[in-house]
């Protein structure tokens, strides 16, 4: 159950506005252009061991197709003798994800590769807020229906 604490009115407002200058609006991937987050996938296998059997099958059958379907990802196939087979993904934010596929059947490995490819690279994080915003405001989220200057005295005069 996500916790939600009501903010202490003025302190939160001032703190939020102060942070606005120290922590400006962050750039978002997808605004303007989308840069695919997964930049590299490394497949490590052992040629002799039995745990790499389904991995080798995947590499022989589907790896090149996967690489040609995803030209933005650098696919590296690398023998790693006497170790279990792993798939290691590198992301543009500097993070890595590794998945050992020693017990996976031939059908599970494409699913794992797909999930690694589609991951953003950010670590899993627990969000305790209903709304996450770069510009928090206790007066609420902007609404275009309430944008016009309500306080313009000339408007009131013409309405009479």
């Amino acid at each position, binding site marked *: 159950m996500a916790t939600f604490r009501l903010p202490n*009115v003025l302190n939160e407002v001032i703190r939020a506005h102060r942070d606005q200058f120290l922590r400006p609006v962050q750039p978002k991937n997808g605004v303007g252009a989308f*840069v695919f987050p997964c930049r590299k996938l490394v497949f490590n296998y052992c040629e002799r061991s039995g745990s790499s059997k389904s991995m080798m099958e995947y590499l022989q059958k589907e790896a090149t197709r996967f690489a040609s379907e995803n030209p933005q990802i*650098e696919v590296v196939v690398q023998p790693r003798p006497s170790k279990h087979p792993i798939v290691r993904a590198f992301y543009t934010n500097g993070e890595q994800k590794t998945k050992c596929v020693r017990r996976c059947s031939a059908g599970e490995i494409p699913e794992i590769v797909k999930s690694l490819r589609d991951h953003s690279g950010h670590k899993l994080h627990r969000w305790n807020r209903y709304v996450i915003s770069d510009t928090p405001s206790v007066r609420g989220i902007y609404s275009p229906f309430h944008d016009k200057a309500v306080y313009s005295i*000339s408007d009131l005069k013409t309405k009479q």
Partner: protein
Amino acid sequence: MFSTVTRVTSRAGLKLGMVGGSRAALSIATARKMAKESPASGKRVVAEAGSTTYAALEARLNLNFGGHGVMEQVCTHKSFAQGRVEHNERLEWIGKRVLNLFVGEHLLATYPNLSTEALQDVQHSSFGMSSLAEIGRHFGMQAAMRWEPVSREAPAVGLTKVLGKTVQALVGAIYQRQGEAAARAFVKQHVLSRPVDVESVMQIKNPKVMLVALTRQKGMEHPVARILKETGRFTSSPVFIVGVFCGTKMVGMGFGSSLKMAEHRAAKDALLKYYAKEIKDISVTGDEPDVSLFAQDVVV
């Protein structure tokens, strides 16, 4: 189209076959090559940037240089191999000027009321070296870069500058090889789409005085502050919302725990609304390749 499979023969027979005619970035490395590159500390290291890294980088950015080692040159700083391989210095030179031109035009059109010193500051803070380095990191260029740090003890020193120069070199390469329109589109998508922070650039020390001067210059009525809403006036945490009016029109609004502070913020808001006024629909796009921002009747 070019094939980017690098095949280093392995002893056992895991043959994957050539991926001809498609843009796959697939490379097969041997265990021996891997062992040579791992450092003494035992930390796991992946192989350095190969040709597949640059092919993948090109595809990630939706570029196609035709595989003449352009991306490799873009990512090579002159400190690498004592400058004996093709590096990005000349590309960076022209790319920096092209990038600054496009960014400058965009800022000029977007912020019509901002002074040129402020525009320069905005360009420096929002589109300067550190921002370009962030963009480069976002592309995944840090792994593809080839450079030599100044000292081995501090390998990160100089990284920001080199990354920024790499991005400038990339813009230069696009400009030289694909033309102005492509470069403009690239800059618009990747650089100009990032948020611009104008408020931090403006130094407003005495907003009330500045606002009076501005209204006098514009021929508007003298600004007057009026309370719009208030609560808790005689308590420990009052909130006042004050609006600054020039005649009947409200030019700025601010909050505060004292009337003075609310008035200060309202005046500041009025100044920012004027100087940092943003025009959203400007016609500097990559869709009109031969039209400059300022050419009304001259079409090249």
